[in-house]
């Protein structure tokens, strides 16, 4: 296991690389979902105001 984490001595560069890549992937999904949620809320509020 330790050998796997060490990655032949490159672990200190390799794991941050994977963390950054996967982090950006997850972050963008969350940002997109929250943007959709906000847009829905705003549209609903407008609907209620106009009624």
């Amino acid at each position, binding site marked *: 296991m330790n050998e*796997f984490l060490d*990655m*032949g*001595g*490159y672990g200190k*560069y*390799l794991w*941050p*690389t*994977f963390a*950054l*890549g*996967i982090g*950006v*992937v997850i*972050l*963008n*999904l969350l*940002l*997109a*979902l929250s*943007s*959709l949620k*906000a*847009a*829905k809320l*705003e*549209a*609903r509020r*407008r*609907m209620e105001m106009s009624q």
Partner: protein
Amino acid sequence: MATWTWFHRLASPPHVYAFARRWTPWFGGFAAVAIVVALYGGLVMAPPDYQQKDAFRMVYVHAPTAWLSLMIYTTMAVAAAVGLIWRMKVAHAAAAACAPVGAWMTVAALGTGMLYGKPMWGTYWVWDPRLTAELVLLFLYFGYMGLRAGIEDPVKADKASAVLAVVGVINVPIIKFSVEWWNSLHQTATVMQMGKPKMDFDMLWPLLLMLLGFLLYFITVLLIRLRAELLRRERNASWVREVLA
């Protein structure tokens, strides 16, 4: 005839909204499976490189993010051009939906590239043609988003930002071919080249699967953001009431 029906549907916000809602879970699901399998393939199954040893595995994150940063910009520029030429609102909305995820992918490409560069080249950063052009790409995304945010009238914001997106697309081939046109520290294309890729199959399949996973992921995020854009733009339309009812 069928082509034009398809084109008209593409221009219709309620159709696009319904399409996006229906297909998002599918694209997202396949993206997740592809990325997880590719991670396992790249980190566990692929053998170490004879030159770069285990450090080469960083390519499984670096290449897909860098490739997406270019692909998303190209998509954005094409959508912006369609919006300009045919005055299609959905196309402008799609272009706007591309920008944030494209900018983030460029940040990831630059960041992972720096972490890859340190052990391979001995430095995090050099003002090399490929790296510099990729940084320019990030500023193009920022410029596009800044321009949109700075113009209040949505029609004017669409037009001005679309012109910037279309002009800026010149940077995409510059990045792609920078490693061939100039002396670059960055290695030349390994996979995306004419003829056979310069990579063993055991190393290649996780990379190709990761590229596919990232492409599906981008489509997923684009569809979600496109729905948000359409809701904001069409907030007074009757279809929005029906969709949210």
